[in-house]
């Protein structure tokens, strides 16, 4: 549904009810100065809703009111509504509220001829005038039908009454019992035609859920769905979240998941603030632990966390988390953490969600944890659950509340029972990996909108110092975890040692060969050098011999020359 801000001048003036959610569905409240019919079965909340209309009118909008009670006395009414936190005695003293009990007892009344209901008119008129009331409730005017026999007079007088109320300019609520075929048992909708609201208390699967629907609203837009509502110690709250549009602001701020390595897997910075995170996994995979880590980290930043637990009591959560080194008690003591435990089967899904919304409104947390949503799914029909969760997530997003939902899955790991994953921003999957007779946990990021994220499966360890995420072994023999990973790593280590020794052996061999080669080279060189020396020696000797020979030859020739001279001479 789209919100439009165009305000036409002809728009119907409205009287705000102040009832949580109702003004949103009716776009401002009930038709001002006109009558509204609230129809519903026994115990559907008609009286409370109309009383809240008067009380809030008196307290919040400065409009005093008159409550004409046909069924309960003022004391009974005061007692009944006190359980909802309305102190009407004060209001009566301050002349902001009048409760007038109208007793209609058939056995006491004898009809003798023609009459009118002027007595009632005067009573209402007198009450209105005495405090200047702007709001009137007639609860339940149908008692007149039981008390008076002459229906013709009664119907004519009721018609006159509603017209008279309109002339008085008061905003009126008329309650009526639901009829079996018609909207109301006595057809009151015939007279009150401006606005008709239907309350319903339906039981499905032994769980009752209150619902509200605006059947008609003349001259005004209104939400047409059935809206679940809740009656608790603060009055009525209606959950009109389907009317929320997808126009909330998003934050670019990143916040830690509480597990550093997980932050690394999410682009190194963790979750976006205000995003919704789904953690799925089979039993005992550590979903709650991841959620608790996030809660711890959030509290550590000085923010507030509201933890909805549907399986464990607050004490149990605190104890169990202390076994992984998380001290949640300190945050409970400081009021930063609130754990709201309830059995999922206690109420219907809608009631749970309205309760959650109310708790969120009251506690104003920065983060919400729902652990697990799968339990909620069991109490509703899957189509309802999906729309309800969408409403809740939309609501949280509009308030910039980061939400972590855990979900227990059974066989199909990548499917949540209601396909809620599509409305989640980040989806972490914790799965067990069974190898070599043991069960280990693996974690991976299935999706994470708007950020780069790791595509790796990591091993997820729960230690007494918290969660540790380490790399799994991913090698030629597949993905291994736990002791198999350790064994594989050892095996690799051994292989590595072996290989190193081999390399060393080879290099030693090479060394040795080189040394042999060098030795041989040295020997050959030595031999060569020895030979060379010898040869040099020989050359030298030869050269010496040669010079001696030449000297001898010279001497001989000299000697031969002098002989010739002597002969010639």
């Amino acid at each position: 549904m789209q919100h439009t801000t165009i305000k036409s001048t002809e728009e119907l003036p409205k009287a705000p009810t102040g009832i949580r959610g109702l003004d949103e569905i009716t776009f401002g409240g009930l038709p001002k100065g006109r009558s509204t019919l609230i129809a519903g079965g026994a115990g559907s909340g008609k009286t409370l809703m109309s009383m809240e209309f008067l009380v809030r009118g008196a307290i919040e909008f400065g409009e005093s009111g008159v409550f004409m009670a046909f069924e309960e006395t003022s004391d009974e009414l005061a007692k009944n509504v006190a359980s909802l936190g309305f102190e009407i005695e004060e209001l009566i003293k301050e002349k902001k509220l009048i409760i007038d009990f109208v007793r209609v007892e058939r056995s006491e009344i004898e009809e003798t001829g023609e009459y009118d209901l002027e007595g009632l008119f005067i009573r209402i008129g007198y009450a209105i005038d005495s405090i200047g009331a702007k709001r009137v409730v007639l609860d339940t005017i149908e008692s007149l039908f039981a008390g008076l026999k002459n229906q013709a007079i009664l119907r004519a007088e009721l018609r006159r009454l509603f017209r008279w109320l309109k002339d008085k300019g008061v905003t009126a609520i008329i309650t009526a019992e639901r009829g079996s075929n018609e909207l109301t048992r006595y057809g009151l909708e015939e007279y009150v035609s401006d606005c008709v609201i239907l309350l319903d208390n339906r039981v499905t699967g032994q769980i009752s859920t209150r619902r509200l629907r605006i059947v008609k609203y003349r001259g005004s837009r209104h939400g047409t769905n059935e809206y679940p509502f809740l009656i608790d110690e603060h009055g009525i709250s209606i959950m009109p979240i389907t009317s929320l549009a997808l126009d909330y602001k998003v934050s670019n701020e990143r916040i830690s998941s509480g597990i550093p390595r997980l932050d690394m897997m999410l682009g190194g910075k963790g979750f976006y603030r205000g995003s919704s995170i789904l953690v799925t996994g089979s039993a005992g995979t550590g979903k709650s632990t991841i959620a608790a880590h996030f809660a711890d980290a959030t509290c550590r930043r000085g923010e507030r966390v509201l933890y909805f637990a549907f399986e464990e009591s607050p004490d149990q959560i605190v104890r169990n988390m202390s076994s992984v080194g998380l001290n949640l008690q300190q945050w409970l003591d400081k009021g930063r953490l609130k754990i709201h435990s309830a059995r999922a089967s206690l109420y219907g899904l809608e009631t749970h969600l309205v309760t959650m919304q109310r708790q969120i409104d009251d506690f104003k947390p920065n983060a919400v944890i729902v652990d697990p949503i799968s339990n909620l799914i069991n109490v509703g029909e899957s189509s309802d659950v999906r729309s309800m969760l969408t409403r809740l997530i939309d609501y949280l997003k509009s308030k910039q509340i980061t939400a972590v939902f855990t979900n227990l899955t059974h066989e199909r790991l990548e499917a949540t029972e209601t396909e809620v994953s599509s409305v989640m921003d980040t989806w972490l999957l914790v799965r067990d990996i069974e190898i070599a007779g043991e069960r280990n946990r693996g974690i991976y990021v299935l999706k994470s909108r708007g950020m780069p994220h790791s595509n790796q499966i990591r091993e997820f360890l729960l230690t007494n110092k918290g969660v540790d995420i380490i790399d799994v072994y991913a090698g030629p023999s597949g993905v291994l975890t736990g002791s198999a990973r350790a064994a594989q790593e050892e095996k690799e280590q051994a292989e590595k040692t072996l290989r190193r020794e081999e390399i060393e052996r080879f290099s030693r061999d090479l060394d040795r060969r080189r040394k042999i080669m060098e030795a041989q080279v040295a020997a050959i060189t030595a031999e060569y050098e020895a030979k060379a020396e010898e040869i040099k020696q020989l050359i030298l000797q030869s050269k010496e011999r040669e010079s001696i020979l030449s000297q001898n030859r010279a001497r001989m020739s000299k000697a031969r020359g002098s002989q010739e001279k002597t002969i010639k001479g």
Partner: protein
Amino acid sequence: MPKKDPADVTAEFEKALKDENQERYILRLYVTGMTPKSLRAIDNVKKICNEHLKGRCELEVIDIYQQPDYAKTEQLIAAPTLIKKLPLPLRKFIGDMSNEDRILVGLDIVPKKESERVSRKINDN
């Protein structure tokens, strides 16, 4: 308690009946202005008082337009309303009081059924 003689019981009963017939009536008639309905009602009630309760009927006619707080204190819904304050039990009549028989029965002036009372008497004996 000593058991009473049946003859005494009958005598007591007769006496009670006689007393009842002599009891004073306090009647209040609430009307809304001088409408034809109001006037008819006033006439009719006055007539009953004169004819059946002569000398022992105290009738007060109140206009609730003038005194609207009576509407609440007397638990009025319709108008005109006649309230029999005394003798007890309190009884209310609404309308223009044109159905005289019904009023007479309601005011215990005329017994509901003569035959019923007779049969009760026989049983008591």
